């Protein structure tokens, strides 16, 4: 019941006014010129109310997914669902694996995401280096393409892609899907990596060259170590996008044993009775964990890289 009340707490009006009062002294420390006029306290309270509203909006579907995943069928069928499961169970997870080939699907997703991320990085890093260091018509055209390619509706690309892959006998093939994922993650990878290369001062490379290091040696022992964190972040991001991807997998793969996790998840939706909501929530939760963990690691670097790529090009 307590939890239900907290859900109501999502309403901005029901913020305890004390919440703001507790914080004000610290704020005063930060900016000594400001005084705690009643008006300022009111502003603070409003700010906390708004923040709590945002927190509630962002959190409540997530909490509900979490809650549903651990509920036994009896509670899922209840007319008055509660936030906290009364008799939490792991049965939904067992059921989920029994109903759909989740483990195999996760394996397919892992393979497609890992291989395509690795290939995308291997292909994109040299090109990004050139785009960052050489300014000519080609590099401008390539950068332009990176931007333009974001604007296509996938449907205009997917039909020809489907026909091309069909001609190569790569429809309903893991290799075909991986090829598409590689090309699909290249624009973003190029964008990020070009930003990271620009952040490596050219002077460092020139100094190494003056010391007699060859071009390759300069790249390997000076540039590469400085780029490594950016490369890792970009690779992980490519992995996450491929892991999460749905549209290409839906169109390009037909055999059930090749399908990736997001496509298999939608199979739960077919004949969705109330009792099946538990396994659905449980498998959705499991499918999210890898992306979430990796994203938590790289988030700061990704936002930084996106802006770096944007500011300088």
């Amino acid at each position, binding site marked *: 019941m307590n939890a239900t009340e907290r859900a109501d707490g999502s309403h901005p009006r029901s913020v305890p006014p004390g919440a703001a009062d507790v914080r004000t002294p610290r704020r005063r420390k930060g900016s000594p010129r400001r005084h705690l006029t009643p008006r300022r306290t009111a502003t603070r309270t409003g700010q906390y109310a708004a923040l709590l509203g945002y927190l509630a909006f962002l959190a409540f579907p997530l909490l*509900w997914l979490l809650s549903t995943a651990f509920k036994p069928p009896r509670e899922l069928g209840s007319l008055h669902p509660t936030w906290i499961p009364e008799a939490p169970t792991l049965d939904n997870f067992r059921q989920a694996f029994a109903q759909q080939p989740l483990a195999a699907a996760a394996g397919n997703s892992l393979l497609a995401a890992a291989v395509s991320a690795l290939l995308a990085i291997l292909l994109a890093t040299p090109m990004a280096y050139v785009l960052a260091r050489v300014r000519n018509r080609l590099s401008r055209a390539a950068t332009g393409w990176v931007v333009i390619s974001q604007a296509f*509706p996938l*449907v205009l690309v997917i039909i020809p892609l489907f026909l091309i892959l069909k001609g190569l006998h790569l429809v309903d093939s893991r290799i075909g899907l991986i090829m598409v994922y590689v090309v699909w993650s290249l624009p973003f990878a190029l964008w990020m990596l070009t930003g990271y290369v620009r952040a490596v001062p050219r002077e460092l490379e020139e100094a190494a060259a003056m010391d007699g290091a060859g071009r390759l040696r300069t790249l390997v022992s000076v540039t590469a170590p400085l780029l490594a964190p950016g490369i890792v972040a970009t690779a992980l991001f490519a992995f996450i996008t491929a892991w999460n991807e749905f549209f290409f997998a839906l*169109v390009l793969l037909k055999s059930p044993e090749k399908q990736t996790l997001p496509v298999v998840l939608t199979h739960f939706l077919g004949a969705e009775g109330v009792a099946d909501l538990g396994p659905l929530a449980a498998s959705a939760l499991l499918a999210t964990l890898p992306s979430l963990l990796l994203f938590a690691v790289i988030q700061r670097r990704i936002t930084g890289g996106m802006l770096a790529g944007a500011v300088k090009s």
Partner: protein
Amino acid sequence: MTLATAPRRPTAPVAGRATRPRRDLGAWFLVLPALLPILVLSVGPLLYGIGLSFTDAQSGRTQATRFVGLLNFSDLFQDSLFWDSFRIGLIWAFGVTVPQFLLALGLALLLHLDLRLRWLARALAIIPWAMPEVVVGIMWRLVYHPDAGILNETLRDLGLSGTGDGRDWLSGLATALPAVIVVGVWAGMPQTTVTLLAGLQNVPIELHEAASMDGAGAWRRFRTVTWPALRPIALAVTALNFIWNFNSFALVFVLTDGGPGGRTRLPMLFAYEEAFRYGQFGYAATMGLAMVAVISVLLALYLVGRLKGDDDR
């Protein structure tokens, strides 16, 4: 400025003149591995797709595909179902992009303040960004579920269930589109927030202090200091969000699959069905082209209008 570039100048031309032919060749070797896949699987399909829209290409047909000129375009022009879908797509894209931006701006401004719970909001803001779209869709289906969903239960607790129990948000003719728009806002807001926040952190703090010394209130400081600095980022973010939203597929596919009665059938869903359910490749490509055309015109108007606004100031 001159000092910083001066040391670079003398070395570059000398080294460049001696090694230019070789270096250019080296650059090609670095660029080709990424350029070839982009040409074959991204530029190529796009041109191919444009070509397809002038043909009667169908899936699994034995006759040769014929060039039909503008027939698809005149068909499309009279296809009221498609234009209904297009209208829904525009409502969806505006309905998601505008609140997404305003809410994200509000949250970014709050997160920029020194508030308690800021870490929690930041953490929560990452999660929807990392989640697979399919999972976001599944999660909100659980929230909207007529019997087992938390939304109806919360409304009942608040005494707002005037419409009767068990309202099915996603299958109601009037509620389906607003319901999926809320999900779109939820899913896209975090990324926009993080980008805007990064932009806010680049606003020089001295300007703010100077403005508040001059007695400028919060609103005035926002208008004269924060907004001008944030404007380019805001412009880019809203333009990209609009494109992404207009082209989005997985979220609505999972939530409603275009139903009820086509009320949420976005153009992408429409074209997908045309191509992969009915096999009309040529016609679906024409739809894709129409989408690109309208989006390009809208974006051009938006960007030109905004940039002009910049000059006037």
